[in-house]
């Protein structure tokens, strides 16, 4: 069941990324080009509608303290803003802005694989591992 839910969730997520245009690096970079003539606000609507759907589902689970299948749910403890968060997000933002790809769309674009994408994906996985090994 867990496996099926994970697979189907990924599939639905990918169709959402594809439909919304998030898998197009040029569109993402146009969204990020704030204040420039090519600025394209449309991806803000993707984020807002995704957040609203998630917030409704989260409120439901939080209120019932149970998932739909009866698993107990308790709210994760709030973590504070620390230096790791700030540095990590600055670094992520630079990587995202350079090409216009964040992790989800990078995986979806495997269907249109080419050498640049392959190098992005391999280095992203290496980045995960470097962080895991060098950061205490």
């Amino acid at each position, binding site marked *: *069941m867990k496996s099926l*839910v*994970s*697979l189907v969730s*990924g*599939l639905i*997520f*990918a*169709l*959402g990324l*594809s*439909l*919304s*245009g998030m898998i*197009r690096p*040029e*569109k993402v970079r146009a969204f990020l080009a*704030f204040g420039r003539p090519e600025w394209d606000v449309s991806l803000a*609507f993707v*984020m*807002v*509608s*995704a957040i*609203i*759907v998630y*917030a409704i*589902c989260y409120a439901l*689970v*939080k209120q019932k303290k149970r*998932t739909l299948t009866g*698993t107990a749910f308790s709210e*994760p403890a*709030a973590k*504070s803003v620390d230096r*790791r968060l700030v540095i*990590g*997000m600055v670094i*992520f*933002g*630079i*990587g*995202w802005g*350079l*090409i216009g790809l964040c*992790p*989800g769309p990078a*995986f*979806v674009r*495997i269907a249109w694989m080419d*050498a640049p994408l392959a*190098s*992005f*994906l*391999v*280095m*992203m*996985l*290496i980045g*995960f591992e470097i962080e*895991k090994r060098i950061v205490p």
Partner: protein
Amino acid sequence: MTFTREIAGGILIGVGSALPLLFHARIKGISGLASSMLRPFTEVGREGALFIAGLVLGGFVWKYFGLTHPDLYLTQNTSVTTWALAGLLVGFGTRLGGGCTSGHGICGIGRFSKRSFVATLIFMASAVATVLVGAALS
């Protein structure tokens, strides 16, 4: 401009993010799932691997039905080196900061986490700055 595709796509992204929470209380974004995939013999690793398999499958489904946007194949004037560097920064940064566009931007903000709200502001500002500096230099 009605933004129908963007809103419909966003709803699907929200559903895809929320299903693991609704069914087995899992709160994780893509970078978290993808990095746990590198430990496939743990329970969370298997979940991550299957979610990512679903993502990849979704791309092929989209491609198979020919639902591509005309500029999907546009190759930018960016070298493979830049793609590689971007991948490394995305991988390292998302793990150091504990989330990406989905983990902080959707799941985190969706549960009103102050930390994720700050994270989203920072990575958005950093990405905007990167694009603007790049545009100014070219």
